């Protein structure tokens, strides 16, 4: 009698069990929202003398630059996976390097456009001009862009070798970066060892440096930028090597032909 209703429940259950990343809708996404806003609440409650509005605007703009750049790199592969025409993109003269560079450049251009729009809206609505950060803003965002490309390539590597279930990492990682890199709060408020972990991520240093450059926090801007660039470079080099290895692995196991 209820089979026709159970059919839909069965489908949902099987899809979720076979694709553990779907469970992120039950656990990770709600936790991301709760933790980021909860910790932000703690930060406000602590009675900070920093300007919370400008503090958050810097975090949000940098985080968006990350998300847009990462999206460009991951969607470069996802379009092929969704449309089931991946194999065609591995023929012709185009190389892995061409693909990385082309998708990254698209990410760079689109994130610059988004930043300029956000900067204009921020100036208009909140009277805060993030562009006064100048060179540290450019270097900080460049580092975040490099890191976004790295994470994008790592996700693409997993999708290529393990299947499209791993595509949910595209959205999950942006949430995780939001929590760990202190978009809404200073990372010092995070409990150990999450705080120490956050120092391994370039956006943490870029956000701090840009906040320093606009006078919201006191920090050694140059040192933060150096940390950020060094970490991003390490991430980028390792992720390119891993991606190239994954393409070969995909040719070995045949996963290049799954999509």
């Amino acid at each position, binding site marked *: 009698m209820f089979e026709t209703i159970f059919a839909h429940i069965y489908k949902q259950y099987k899809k979720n069990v076979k694709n553990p990343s779907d469970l992120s809708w039950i656990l990770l996404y709600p936790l991301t929202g709760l933790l980021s806003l909860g910790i932000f609440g703690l930060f406000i409650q602590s009675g900070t003398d920093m300007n919370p509005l400008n503090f958050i605007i810097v975090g949000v703009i940098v985080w968006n630059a990350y998300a847009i750049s990462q999206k460009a790199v991951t969607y470069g592969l996802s*379009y092929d996976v969704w*449309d*089931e*025409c991946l*194999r*065609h*993109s*591995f*023929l*012709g*003269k*185009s*190389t892995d390097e061409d693909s990385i560079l082309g998708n990254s450049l698209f990410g760079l251009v689109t994130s610059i456009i988004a930043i300029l729009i956000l900067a204009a809206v921020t100036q208009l609505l909140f009277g805060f001009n993030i562009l006064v950060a100048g060179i540290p803003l450019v270097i900080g965002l460049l580092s975040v862009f490099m890191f976004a490309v790295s994470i994008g390539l790592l996700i693409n590597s997993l999708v290529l070798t393990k299947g499209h279930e791993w595509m949910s990492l595209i959205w999950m990682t942006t949430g995780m970066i939001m929590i760990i890199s202190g978009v809404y709060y200073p990372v010092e408020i995070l409990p150990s060892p999450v705080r120490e972990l956050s120092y391994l991520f370039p956006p943490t240093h870029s956000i701090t440096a840009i906040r320093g450059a606009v006078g919201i926090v006191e920090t050694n801007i140059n040192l933060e930028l150096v940390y950020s660039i060094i970490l991003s470079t390490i991430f980028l080099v390792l992720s390119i090597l891993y991606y190239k290895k994954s393409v*070969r692995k995909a*040719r*070995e*196991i*045949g996963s*290049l*032909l799954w999509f």
Partner: protein
Amino acid sequence: MFAVETDNITKVYGAKKTRIEALKGVSIKIKQNQIYGLLGPNGAGKTTLINVLSTLLLPTSGKASVLGFDVLKQEKEIRRRIGLCYGASRFYWNFDAYENLNYYGMMHGMNGEKRKKKIDQLIEELDMKSFAKVRTSQLSTGMRQKIAIAKSLLNDPELIFMDEPTIGLDVDVSREVRKYLKELVKEKGVTILLTSHNMYEIEMMCENIALINKGKIIKEGNLNEIKSKLNFPDRISFQLSSYENIDFIKNISGFRKMKMSGNRLAVDFYSAEEIISDLMQEMKNRNIKVLDLEIKKASLEEAFLKIVGESNV
């Protein structure tokens, strides 16, 4: 130089429990400037072999070269020189045919003017004008298949892998495509490795073929030779004015056997085409009138079923 040369290629998927041997020591040599047929049932290993040769899949062991380049070490050289057309190919669904071809032209490094010229030429030659600006998601399987064929020809490839290229096409369009591919081989000297379930198609297009079953090449060579070796001769059935003194037929090259069937004489030859004029001349010399004549060619399908049956034992 061979267009394709493989030496004992194997491809194994999965681990111990899920182990699948898709190719079991495939060795073939395909000369240039021809349409070479690869025929086999579903799951025989045809597509796996094409995937290995087009460098999208690495073999587990063995050696293979395509146009003189090693599939393991020189994939970039191979990829820029080949075309690949799969049956029931998919493309970016919200691009139209032109946009899809434009993208793949760029992937081949073709500059704007050259790319546009080539796409326009293919759209014209493959009769795609009516749907070139329609979203791919709205196209029929046959129309999408034409995009796949056009895509495989974009870079003027020296070698084209065609995996069931006429699947989904109606009879007339299939005939057009076959004609187009034959002309391509004749006029531009390209080589085509064609897989098909359609034995008629293979018979119409290929001079040389390989039969593959369960990951192994079970027969390779000239299509007519394969048919004759398998003892599937052509049959010439006569109605003659006289059936006396007809033993001379046994001395004609390629003779297999003859028997009377009702009022007709049935004679089996390896290749009826090659001897028919000599046979008719001999009949005339002996004043034997041919009242009726019928030739039944041995079909590849019969040969194929026999070979596959034997290889399954």
